[in-house]
């Protein structure tokens, strides 16, 4: 399956979308997969563990929800193997809301992905937050009708995921910490690497592709486009409206908020505030208004107190 850049994601592109020219309707094309991601832009995708939380998220203005059994903060505390959620719980969430419902599968667990596809999930997150099922291979995402989003810490990782069929990327951050520092690091890394690539000659790009362990063709498209060639959200540690707005100003297309909402003092209010903050990310006056009186934020963890094996962002290859 060939890669084609989503239309109008960036200006001044000279790509043509490949819509089937035989008049026959086609499903699950890359255009349709990236199309949903383009529609989610400027929005907040919230982690929810039951139908009630999903309704709170929808009323707050979430553009999608991520159905999972335990939010990352609880996975950290409780430990054990974290897996795909019970399909029954996902179905209940789907029943409760009209916005898209996403769910997570373990890295490399292609059967969990088949199961989620069969119950009509809208997007699959092949996620480092769950315990990996394969320490070498990610899922071949071209094989599915349902689109995938994957985490990345740097440009090479993002382009490898796109090469495997991911239709959307999210920077990993460090989930379940309430600490935005890793999200910033990953976003800045990707931006810096794209800026570097965009100044390179073709000869240099060959060598840079090798250095990043990225497919050359995708790197070349990225360099031309001056942005990731699919929609890129920020994730992992965002806990406040200011965190979300900062990630938007750093150039992401939207945000995932996991533990940050339902581990805080007043989830409904905080959720609304983060939604407003993502829309009005460049207006400090509005950001000040929505940041007022939100109650307690999630406590948060300093990343440097975590040992290497507690760092979720190191998972994925």
């Amino acid at each position, binding site marked *: 399956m060939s890669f084609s850049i989503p239309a109008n994601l960036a200006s001044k592109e000279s790509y043509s979308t490949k819509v089937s020219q035989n008049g026959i309707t086609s499903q699950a094309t890359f255009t349709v997969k990236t199309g949903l991601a383009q529609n989610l832009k400027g929005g907040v995708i919230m982690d929810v563990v039951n139908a009630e939380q999903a309704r709170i998220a929808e009323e707050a203005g979430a553009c999608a929800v991520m159905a999972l059994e335990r939010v990352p903060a609880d996975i950290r505390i409780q430990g054990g193997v974290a897996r795909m959620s019970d399909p029954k719980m996902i179905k209940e969430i789907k029943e409760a*809301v009209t916005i898209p419902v996403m769910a997570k599968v373990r890295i490399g667990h292609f059967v969990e992905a088949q199961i989620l596809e069969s119950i009509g999930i*809208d997007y699959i997150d092949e996620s480092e937050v769950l315990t990996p099922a394969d320490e070498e291979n990610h899922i071949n995402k071209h094989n599915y009708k349902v689109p995938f989003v994957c985490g990345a810490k740097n440009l090479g990782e993002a382009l490898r995921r796109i090469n495997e069929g991911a239709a959307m990327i999210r920077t990993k951050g460090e989930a379940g910490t309430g600490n935005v520092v890793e999200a910033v690091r990953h976003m800045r890394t990707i931006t810096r690497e794209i800026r570097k690539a965009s100044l390179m000659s073709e000869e240099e790009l060959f060598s840079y592709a090798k250095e990043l362990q990225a497919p050359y063709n995708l790197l070349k498209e990225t360099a031309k486009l001056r942005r990731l060639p699919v929609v890129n959200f920020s994730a992992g540690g965002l806990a406040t409206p200011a965190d979300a707005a900062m990630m938007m100003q750093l150039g992401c297309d939207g945000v995932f908020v996991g533990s940050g909402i339902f581990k805080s003092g007043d989830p409904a209010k905080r959720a609304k505030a983060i939604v407003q903050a993502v829309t009005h990310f460049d207006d400090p006056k509005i950001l000040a208004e929505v940041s007022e009186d939100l109650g307690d934020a999630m406590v948060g963890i300093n990343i440097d107190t975590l040992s290497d094996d507690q760092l979720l962002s190191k998972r994925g290859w």
Partner: protein
Amino acid sequence: MVRTCNDFQQVQPQFKFGVLALQGAFQEHIHMLQNISQVSSAIPIRKAEQLETIDALIIPGGESTTMALIAERSGLMEPLRKFVRDEKPTWGTCAGMILLANEANKVKKGGQDLIGGLNITVNRNQFGSQIDSFESLLHINHITTSSDDLFPAIFIRAPIISSINSSNVEVLARLEHDIGETDASSIVAVRQGSLLGTAFHPELTNDDRIHKYFVQLTQDHYNTGKGRNE
């Protein structure tokens, strides 16, 4: 375009376009508008006062519930209704068409606020979940002329127009093929005066014919003597 030699009209009319930028694929519309010659500027709209500076508006695809909630909280709902009531050209794509409809079915629990204006009823999320999203080539009135230049229509968790509630509403396009349980005759694009609604996403293609048509509608609208922003 031919320029006239008239001293009083040396350049073709230029119009200011806005794209509602609360959530969704607004940047894609802006990128497309920026390449059309009669468009002097295409700006994202997030505040009521910005609405007063534009001649025509596009409400993009995204989540209609999200956009309606943010619009309400940002004090934009009434100004948007006024914009449409004042007959300023407005085009809604997908979620944008839902917001422009006077009635919507299959809305979230507790209902959904709409801008209204288009005298139609829409069914939200007609086709099912994302795996039922699709692309298809369509005949569209005023846009396509033969079977050789059909329009590439991309339907993402798309709505359809389940009924037309006024004779002022013109049907521009139908599905043409049965999709799942949805009949081929289902209406997917309409026009009512200077209001336009499409269930699909022209901004997710590189085909700018509907964008140009909307710009033309805007030009015709203001040429018939209605005041515009200078």
